[in-house]
């Protein structure tokens, strides 16, 4: 089993800590590893490190690299189910299944996440309002827990199944999962793009029409105020019915360009971001119906530039993503207004409607709205502005997304995730010694280990 000591941080590059990285080759090695590690140092799984904050690291502890768990089974032609190693990325899986006429049931804005991470964060995509989150499409999970390996289904152990969905790796280490794929007849996407002059118009269009599309997302400009506050571009679509091009070349082999080194501090400032947002808004058509786009253009805009997180410079960035119920839809406008008023520069924000959430006690999506903003670390006002937003979001029955978090006020966690105590009981059942922990867990006390 390969072992090294290295400095790790999340995609936001904000909290580098040193951990031991181990790379088990088999389930047996992993089971043995969990039996051997002393609980006080902690163990957590890590995939491709795309979580923004600290869920896939444990300072001074052991980070388990699942890159050896890469098998992909044959696809069951009747149920469309496939069994995939936890270390397989959505990118690898798509390269494998697109030529066979299948798509992943849920994809985030990047293909560079693993199946294990997709379940641990219970990720969502542009189709959440129709198809729910990733765990909704998971048939079974192979989980190695400190009390031993087990295969978990909704029927065999519903509590453990749902605690693992969105459980941020704290209920065990996933080695494989069986998921149900989406059969498609084309690798192209038919897209309707509409431009809207302010946030109210964007949100009204989404409420009116999202149900007509499998996929829907809006990109919103957070640097404008007044009559154009929250102007945005709404893109909605579905897989095209027939295929003009070849399936084999549906995805690019890699990113078109890469950021080769860390940008100097302050490259992304109010001026440069305002200019970018303006150009981006002007570039979008007022209305274009039935446009044809590739899968990578439509689903994975973040993959066009490799290492784009380096643009934020040495101090890194945070992403603030929250969800609020429909009754509190005004929170979206309030959040954008407060950030604009505090002069914190923000790139385009992503706005999306969520359908009903799944039963995972730590699963993020709940019916209503979600807004995600990238914010550079540096403006002195930012920590307090986000703390105030936490208060607002928690107060209206909303929550923040743990896979994106790097700074949430821990006092709000039980309000945001009311089933937290149920999660803690399940985690303690399969990990009574509390071997599994992460810096996220330590920071937010997810497992309830700290005596307050």
């Amino acid at each position, binding site marked *: 089993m390969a072992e090294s000591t290295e400095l790790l941080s999340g995609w936001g590059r904000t909290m580098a800590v040193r951990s031991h990285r181990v790379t088990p080759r088999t389930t047996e090695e992993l089971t043995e590893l969990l039996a051997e590690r002393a609980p006080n140092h902690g163990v957590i799984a890590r995939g491709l490190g795309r979580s923004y904050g600290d869920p896939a690291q444990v300072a001074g502890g052991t980070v388990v690299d699942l890159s050896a768990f890469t098998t992909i089974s044959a696809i069951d032609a009747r149920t469309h189910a496939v069994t995939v190693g936890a270390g397989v990325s959505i990118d690898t899986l798509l390269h494998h299944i697109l030529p066979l006429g299948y798509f992943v049931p849920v994809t985030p804005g990047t293909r560079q996440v693993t199946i294990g991470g997709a379940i641990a964060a219970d990720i969502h995509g542009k189709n959440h309002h129709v198809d729910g989150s990733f765990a909704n499409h998971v048939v079974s999970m192979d989980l190695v827990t400190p009390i031993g390996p087990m295969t978990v289904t909704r029927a065999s152990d519903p509590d453990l199944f749902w605690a693992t969905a969105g459980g941020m790796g704290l209920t065990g280490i996933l080695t494989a999962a069986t998921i149900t794929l989406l059969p498609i007849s084309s690798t192209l996407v038919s897209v309707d793009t509409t431009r809207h002059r302010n946030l109210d118009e964007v949100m009204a269009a989404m409420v009116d029409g999202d149900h007509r599309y499998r996929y829907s997302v809006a990109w919103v400009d957070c640097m404008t105020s007044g009559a154009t506050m929250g102007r945005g571009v709404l893109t909605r679509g579905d897989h095209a019915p027939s295929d003009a091009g070849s399936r084999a070349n549906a995805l690019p082999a890699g990113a078109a360009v890469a950021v080769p080194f860390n940008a100097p501090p302050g490259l992304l400032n109010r001026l440069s971001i305002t200019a970018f947002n303006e150009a981006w808004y002007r570039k979008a058509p007022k209305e274009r119906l039935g446009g044809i786009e590739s899968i990578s253009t439509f689903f994975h805009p973040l993959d066009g530039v490799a290492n784009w997180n380096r643009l934020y410079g040495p101090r890194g960035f945070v992403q603030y993503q929250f969800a609020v119920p429909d009754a509190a839809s005004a929170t979206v406008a309030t959040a954008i207004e407060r950030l604009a008023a505090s002069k914190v520069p923000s790139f385009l924000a992503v706005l999306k409607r969520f359908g009903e959430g799944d039963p995972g006690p730590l699963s993020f999506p709940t019916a209503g709205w979600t807004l995600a903003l990238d914010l550079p670390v540096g403006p002195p006002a930012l920590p307090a502005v986000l703390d105030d937003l936490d208060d607002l979001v928690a107060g209206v029955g909303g929550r923040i997304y743990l896979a994106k978090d790097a700074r949430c006020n*821990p006092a709000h966690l039980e309000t945001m995730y009311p089933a937290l105590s149920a999660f803690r009981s399940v985690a303690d059942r399969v990990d009574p010694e509390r071997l599994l922990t992460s810096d996220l867990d330590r920071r937010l006390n997810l497992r309830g280990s700290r005596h307050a």
Partner: protein
Amino acid sequence: MRDAFGQPQTAILFGGTSAIGLAIVDRLVDARLRHVVLVGRNATALEDAAAALHSRSVTATVVLADAADGATARGAVDQAFAALGTPCDLVIMAVGLLGDQSKDDDDPDRTATMFTVNTAWPAAVLAGCRAALVAQGTGQIVVLSSVAALRTRRANYTYGAGKQGLDGFTLGLAESLRGTGVTVHLIRPGFVTTKMTEHLKAAPFSTTAPAVADVTVAAIAKGAPVAYAPGILRYVFLVLRHLPSALWRKIPG
């Protein structure tokens, strides 16, 4: 764990009754700090400081240790980390003794104590903290030095030379910790009006404990390796350090 903005949740304050140290703690409690260990000599004063923290919903534990006795350093580190029980996000080294130069001048015992309290004990404690934080894989260290360390002067050369030792030690410590996940922030305040200096005439660019705390918290957030309080002293001392001795002698303060 500290967060993306470098805001700690747990801290150990060596010099648990230091006005500057407690002002830093106070500022951090406004953010995320919830568990503090106060290390010092004066049990009553430490308990008072702990009680003030309890009233702000902060867990505060007291560890007794006398910085005038170099042999207590190891035990103080072990007890402080054990009292915290969880990874320590921040170590603040705020131990210091200003002394009285007119009495220190000809007194070997007083001079030895000055160097123990200002240099030997803090350095020994920092060595112990270094081991503990490296094992944790994360942590931040704040060391309160002084602009007096930049150039010793007649009025307080024993204090200045002691801080000079700690200042240089800290810069080397920071180098030794590159790539470990542990960062070091050296703070060089000017004349700070506290109980330690209330009998003295304030020097130019004098500052206060809360102002030094603001500089320190900003240095932690920015990851600044060296910070001055007030900030202008960085440039003032750039000049003062290179003045001819005849002129340096005449600078007030």
